[in-house]
């Protein structure tokens, strides 16, 4: 436990717990909504946002945050406009817009001479967190979790059957936009830990793993949070022990958990299921 003495490392562990917990909770919405691809596209849209923000306002905490938020919203709404205004479907539109923006972002970042930072935005650098970053993460987690739990009832009804929810007076459209906005903010909060290339893993895998183990919606939300937080913190330790980068380690540990559930879940696992059949 030697590494835990250093403040850098303590911050990394706390950040992993916090970011993993929030992403784990939010991942239940992504999985139940079957919108992993869409969220993946938006996570890539964060990078060009950062690039443009640096170009316009220079590199600081707020420029990266606001730039990435703005870019995700712009590309999300842009894909909606393209799909409504032409015969191209929204997924295709999203793919076109985010790959183009991403390419532009990479070129721009190289020109701006921030190659070192670019690596961090792509794959994360949880060891580089400062106290102020921790606080930002804390408030994002606090706000996102508060909002999502407060709106749990109408959100769950919308996820299960949006049409029926609407006939019961749930403002479905507004809730969908709100949910997407919260997911984007949660994505941004995980940028420093895992980067925009890997953020999707943290925002899908935890609840997807629990989904294979349980039939309870609540277990999916809180189990996803616990798994997300604990697996991320454990992965940071693994990173030190094996001397590998923490960002990829987090997503890899989560992937391993998923694989285990996929194979060995008593009810829904590949091997668990065949064992039940054989009995």
């Amino acid at each position, binding site marked *: 436990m030697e590494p835990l003495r250093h403040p850098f490392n303590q911050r990394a562990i706390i950040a992993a717990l916090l970011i993993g917990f929030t992403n784990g909770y939010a991942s239940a919405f992504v999985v*139940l909504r079957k919108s992993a691809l869409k969220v993946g596209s938006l996570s890539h849209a964060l990078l060009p946002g950062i690039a443009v923000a640096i170009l316009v306002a220079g590199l600081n905490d707020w420029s990266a945050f606001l730039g990435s938020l703005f870019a995700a919203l712009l590309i999300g709404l842009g894909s909606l406009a393209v799909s409504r205004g032409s015969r191209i479907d929204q997924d295709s539109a999203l793919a076109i817009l985010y790959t183009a923006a991403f390419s532009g972002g990479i070129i721009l970042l190289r020109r701006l001479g921030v190659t070192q930072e670019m690596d961090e935005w792509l794959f994360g650098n949880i060891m580089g967190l400062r106290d102020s970053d921790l606080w930002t993460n804390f408030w994002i987690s606090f706000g996102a979790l508060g909002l999502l739990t*407060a*709106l749990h*009832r*109408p959100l769950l*009804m919308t*996820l*299960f*059957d949006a*049409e*029926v*929810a*609407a*006939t*019961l*007076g*749930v403002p479905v459209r507004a809730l969908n936009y709100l949910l997407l906005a919260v997911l984007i903010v949660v994505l941004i909060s995980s940028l420093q830990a895992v980067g925009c290339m890997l953020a999707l893993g943290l925002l899908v895998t935890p609840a997807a793993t629990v*989904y294979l183990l*349980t*039939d*309870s*919606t609540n277990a*999916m939300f809180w189990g996803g949070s616990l798994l997300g937080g604990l697996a991320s913190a454990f992965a940071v330790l693994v990173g030190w022990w094996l001397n590998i980068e923490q960002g990829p380690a987090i997503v890899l540990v989560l992937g391993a958990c998923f694989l285990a559930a996929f194979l060995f879940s008593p009810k829904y696992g590949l091997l668990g299921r065949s064992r039940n059949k054989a009995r």
Partner: protein
Amino acid sequence: MTVATHESCAHCAHHHELVVENLHVRYRHIDALHDVSLATSCGACVALIGPNGAGKSTLLKAIAGLIPLAGGRILWRGTKVAKWSREIAYLPQRENVDWQFPITVERVVRMGRYPQAGWWKPFSTTDEAAISRAIGLMELTDLAHRQISELSGGQQQRVFLARALAQEAHVLLLDEPFTGLDRNSKAALAATLREIAAEGRLVVASHHDMDTVRDIYDEVLLLRRSAIAFGSVDEVFTTELLDQTFGGKEMPCPIG
């Protein structure tokens, strides 16, 4: 016609009336429905009959408030139906529902109390009583804690009915409730729909099986983008009018 006996209908001297007047619905630039009118009231079972793409689902959704109207109006108990009404329940086609969603029978039925309980309020004893009564009436008590993925088609349909009963809906709009059910479940569902109507509620369902129409329904709307005819089963469910509804050339631009 049956006299209303349902507690929420009983205190009214008149039947609760559902009136659709010259309904006009457009999807993009196509007329999905036009010139659809009907007038019916609580205590009846109404069948919507017509070929695929005739607009049966569209009409149900329009009454449920899910689709904006291009013209005409829908009146429930004399007032225009707003975006939604607690008294009108919509039961989607079973195939449009994600049955792998991790949720139990009871939790689905509880959703019916959302209009009363709101976003945060804990459920009152009235809410709980309505929920267990609905579950009991639909004979789901033993299945209350089952996952919805583990139910048969007939049981799934009863879960939706229980949710509508928990909601204390007066009007139940069912989209193809009999599709995909086996023979026994069909007979059981038919009896249940009759009971729900006899209780003083209004049942409106899109229906495909011509052999069972007379056993289940009191009134029929023949639909083919516009209303061909509306009236009692004896008046409307005739060979001549059915030929007019289904026969002839293919409809242009069929939509779901």
